[in-house]
């Protein structure tokens, strides 16, 4: 930066006494540094009884610490780990945690308090001034270092033999790529994985709570139901990955209340099924207000209107919740009529 441009007179003059020496009061300059005030004694410095008291306080603190450590060991040995006690205002808490924590806390705190009290009352409190030295090296040292460096560089002949220099640079530039390539197998490539879920034509909607397939008449107006695709069980190897995309939220609206035409088409007797995964950053959105038909995300408050194609009416989400097209199979169970037509969950670059 071009700080040389700034004229010296813009910088304030150094004030205060020169070089750490205790300044002499200057009658011409009332603002001059009067220098370090004289040291004043504490009670402990002049009264041996006070000093003795301090000594005893410090020793007492160290003793309390020892006792607390014994208490810690005793608590560890004798208190049953699952014992619960009621202590106001903490509530029903673990006796072990409380006893261990307090004894450990006291044992440590008293060591510290003793040491600090010792330092404050019995060690010398005379203030000492220490000189500072400039961080920058003197011009001679600077010149010497520069000369040494040039000498070394010259002796290495790196400047004279550019072939060595350039090939070395090339080798050093390339070698980290091995490391970069080694990172490739950290994970599989996205391909189309974010676009598909387990939902497919004919998959029944299975109630999360009862693990039974749902019938239209199970879904009452104003109720809220969560569903997963038939066949996905909690103990499946990839349950977490699949439910992270396939989780479904089902509500029943009065068909007259559905404002969006496609939503009505994709519903069954007013039963609509939406992805439970928020399109913002993927929280399972499900704070359904049955009177307003709004559903709110508990993470960042994106609000969607389920009676209007689940479009965003508030908050940071960028697009509507994907709807699953549903119908009824020959046995009268609710089924999907295909996968979601757009990727569920948060948007990503390739989503389009």
């Amino acid at each position: 930066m071009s700080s040389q441009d700034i004229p010296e007179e813009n910088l304030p003059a150094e004030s205060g006494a020169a070089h750490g020496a205790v300044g002499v009061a200057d009658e011409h300059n009332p603002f001059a540094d009067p220098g370090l005030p004289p040291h004043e004694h504490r009670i402990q410095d002049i009264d041996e009884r006070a000093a003795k008291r301090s000594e005893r306080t410090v020793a007492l603190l160290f003793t309390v610490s020892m006792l607390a450590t014994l208490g810690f060991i005793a608590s560890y040995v004798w208190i049953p780990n699952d014992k619960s006690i009621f202590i106001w205002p903490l509530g029903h808490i673990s006796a072990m945690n409380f006893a261990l924590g307090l004894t450990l806390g006291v044992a440590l705190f008293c060591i510290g308090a003793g040491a600090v009290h010792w330092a404050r009352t019995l060690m010398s409190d005379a203030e000492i001034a220490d000189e500072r030295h400039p961080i920058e090296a003197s011009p001679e040292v600077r010149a010497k270092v520069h000369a040494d460096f040039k000498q070394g560089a010259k002796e290495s002949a790196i400047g004279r033999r550019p072939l060595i220099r350039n090939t070395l640079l090339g080798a050093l530039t390339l070698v980290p790529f091995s490391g970069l390539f080694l990172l490739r197998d950290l994970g599989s490539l996205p391909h189309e994985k974010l676009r598909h879920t387990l939902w497919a034509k004919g998959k029944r909607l299975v109630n999360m709570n009862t693990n039974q397939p749902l019938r239209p008449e199970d879904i009452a107006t104003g109720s809220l139901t969560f569903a997963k695709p038939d066949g996905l069980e909690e103990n499946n190897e990839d349950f977490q990955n699949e439910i992270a995309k396939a989780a479904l939220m089902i509500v029943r609206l009065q068909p007259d209340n559905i404002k969006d035409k496609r939503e009505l088409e994709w519903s069954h007797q007013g039963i609509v099924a939406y992805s439970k995964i928020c399109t913002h950053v993927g929280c399972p959105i499900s704070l359904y207000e049955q009177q307003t038909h709004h559903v709110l995300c508990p993470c960042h408050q994106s609000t969607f209107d389920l009676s209007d194609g689940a479009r965003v009416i508030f908050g940071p989400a960028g697009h509507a919740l994907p709807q699953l097209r549903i119908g009824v199979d020959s046995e009268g169970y609710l089924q999907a009529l295909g996968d979601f037509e757009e990727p569920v969950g948060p948007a990503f670059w390739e989503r389009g």
Partner: protein
Amino acid sequence: MKKLSARRRHPLAAVVVLLLALAATGGLYTAFAPASKAKADDSAQSLTIEEGKKLYEVGCASCHGAGGQGTTDGPSLVGVGAAAVDFQVGTGRMPAQQPGAQIPRKKVIYNQAEIDQLAAYIASLGAGPSVPTKNQYSPEGADIAKGGELFRTNCAQCHNFTGKGGALTHGKFAPDLEGVQPKHIYEAMQTGPQNMPSFPDTTLSSKNKKDIIAYLHSVNSDQTKNPGGLELGGLGPVSEGLFGWIFGLGVLIAVAVWVAARTAKAKKS
């Protein structure tokens, strides 16, 4: 935005939706409710209904209409069932004091006998969910862990991990469930009061409800164990952060002031 919010907050809007929702719930329930419960002809029962009608005319009719058919100030109660009455009146929400984003829980005005009479009267207007029996909602013999899983799937999104409550849109909220009677929790799941969706037996079985009640009793009651100490409201990192700043860093700064402070000097005499 303001206009929208105002319209949605308008008592009328809530009333209209509530009316539709409750009517539908009740209607649906009729299909499943045991027929015997809806009918009671003996004289004791009709006396109860008569008493309930009197109470209704004094305390409820101004908003819900003389025959429970609803007015602009309150939804129709035909077919909401005894469970809804028992919940709304039994938790003090009804009779409502003033319209707002949400009618909050408050001091209960009627005693249980009166509530039963009111419920009987409303139930006589049209069949709906009846008040659950103790056997249905008592947490004994329930699977607490299953209840926890169900709670996290169906309830925690509004009521928080352990039922401490949370915010909804435009000033509405899901209340803290501590101290709510098991019966009322059961009724709330069944009837879906105000903006809460209902969880009818068809999707959340009676056993499921019992499990949830047992879970709540275990994690959000005055008997709940918090082994680590102060629960800090059970609200998670926000209250923990606040505590860490005020009591953690606060205490340490106070200690630092003591460590760095000068010891008192002896007075010059």
